[in-house]
């Protein structure tokens, strides 16, 4: 497809996304917020995946961000907006410290350790009763932006914009080269002068900052944080399913996946309550078996084939 046409299409989608509150009610806006939040998380998951490292730690850093934000308001008297920025910084700092320890691991070993992150954070927070409220969590005096449906939608959209911007920067900067090289062949990457650990650490910290930032937005948007709500495994599993369905190693793939799976989930929740999770599982299996490149991968393949025929 023509590149200019794609740019115009992307601009139109962006304008429509910003203008959505003008013609959508509270319920569609709530659904859109969910889709956008998961989309942003899916993009950050994919950004690290471009180095070949599969993280199951999204929920951990997201939940950490949510707590940092709520605690920032309650314990340090921060403004809600500042607390969201603080949430990103706190998750980034945690990722920096953890990254030094776990980024020497590879493949399944790295994945298993990241899987444990959410659980470790949840247990620690649950047991710091006096500071974090324990299992009951913490409740804010009010919701950010006065709980306005449009305001909360735009705030979440801003979170997505940060994730999109970072992902686009990764695609256009030296990150793309470094991460693709590391994913393809670590020995060749090292022999080409790439400091693998430094690039992995930078990627892990940047994606964690965004995940924490999104957690902060979530905590402020709902006005509370409990261990069970913000460390929910769905914050890891759904973004992963969305990125796989849409297509990995790109910004566009997770966007496709999040829209499709997010809307399908809303519909399925009404048709078969809780059964939608089974459908997620089936979708992941089908995609991995039959379309490992995801839907965006299929489109790219078809595009290349048609260009090949023209040539």
């Amino acid at each position, binding site marked *: 497809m023509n590149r200019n046409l794609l740019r115009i299409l992307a601009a139109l989608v962006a304008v429509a996304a910003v203008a959505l509150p003008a013609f959508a009610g509270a319920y569609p806006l709530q659904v859109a917020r969910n889709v956008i939040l998961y989309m942003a998380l899916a993009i950050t998951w994919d950004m690290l995946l471009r180095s070949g490292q599969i993280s199951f730690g999204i929920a951990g850093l997201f939940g950490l961000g949510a707590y940092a934000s709520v605690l920032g308001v309650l314990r340090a008297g921060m403004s809600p907006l500042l607390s969201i920025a603080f949430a990103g910084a706190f998750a980034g700092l945690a990722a920096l410290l953890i990254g030094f320890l776990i980024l020497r691991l590879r493949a399944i070993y790295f994945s298993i350790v990241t899987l444990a992150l959410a659980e470790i954070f949840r247990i620690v927070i649950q047991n710091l009763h006096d500071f974090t409220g324990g299992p009951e969590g913490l409740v804010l005096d009010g919701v950010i932006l006065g709980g306005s449906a449009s305001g909360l939608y735009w705030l979440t959209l801003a979170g997505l914009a940060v994730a999109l911007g970072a992902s686009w920067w990764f695609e256009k900067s*030296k990150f793309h*080269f470094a991460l*693709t*090289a590391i*994913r*393809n*062949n670590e*020995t*060749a*990457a*090292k*022999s*080409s*002068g*790439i*400091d*693998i650990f430094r690039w992995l650490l930078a990627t892990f910290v940047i994606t964690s900052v965004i995940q924490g930032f999104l957690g902060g937005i979530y905590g402020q948007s709902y006005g509370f944080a409990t261990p069970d709500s913000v460390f929910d495994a769905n914050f890891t599993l759904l973004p992963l399913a969305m990125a796989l369905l849409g297509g990995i190693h790109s910004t566009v793939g997770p966007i496709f996946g999040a829209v499709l799976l997010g809307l399908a989930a809303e519909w399925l929740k009404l048709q078969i309550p809780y059964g939608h999770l089974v459908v997620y599982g089936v979708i992941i299996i089908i995609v991995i078996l039959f379309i490992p490149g995801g839907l965006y991968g299929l489109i790219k393949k078809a595009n290349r084939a048609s260009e090949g025929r023209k040539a």
Partner: protein
Amino acid sequence: MILDVKKLEAGYGKLRVLDGISLSVGKESVGLFGPNGAGKTTIINAIMGIVKPWGGTIEFEGTRMEGMATHLVARAGIALVPQERELFPGMSVADNLELGAAWVPRGKPIMARQLETVLELFPILKERYRQYVGTMSGGQQRMVAIGRALMANPALLILDEPSLGLQPSIVAEVFDRLALLKKDISILVTEQNVRESLRAIDRGYVIENGAVVLEDTAAGLAVNPHVVSAYLGI
């Protein structure tokens, strides 16, 4: 000397592979010959920082290198063409070549000039410039691997068994190119195909059981009775 290795010892776990190897490379092309398991690749891995030496010294352009991280060795000016080619199969020829120079201070500022040199040396890469490397033949991939290493404008080019898995006509082509390169660059090449590689080297070492058993010029090795019977099959 460009590279000066003294009494190098290395191994894997408890297995000693190198037992005090000493060798040097000046402004010349040097071959390392020996049977499978002699320790040729281990010498290279130790120089590149992929394997940590147990003892001995490695000096490159006057700087001690033993135990240095691989990416720093590469940035210092040593480029490796590994045995298994070790390319980036999901990337195009263009990207593979650019990656060879992107992180190396000696190569980055003159990337365009190096690219011209590489494409002149291997014209097939110009034709396949946008092709994914994973879809290319073994011989072409070997050329990409050598091209990528040259992009770094290295002071020393190391090739680990460049003829491995290639058909004879391609092997001859690869060594023809190396013979051209040795005028401008120091080369250290390990090989089992001694007959072909003697054309591209000035000097060589024969390694057996982790030690140097013979050192001579290419002409001397070609007539040495041990080399003739063990490696040239005459």
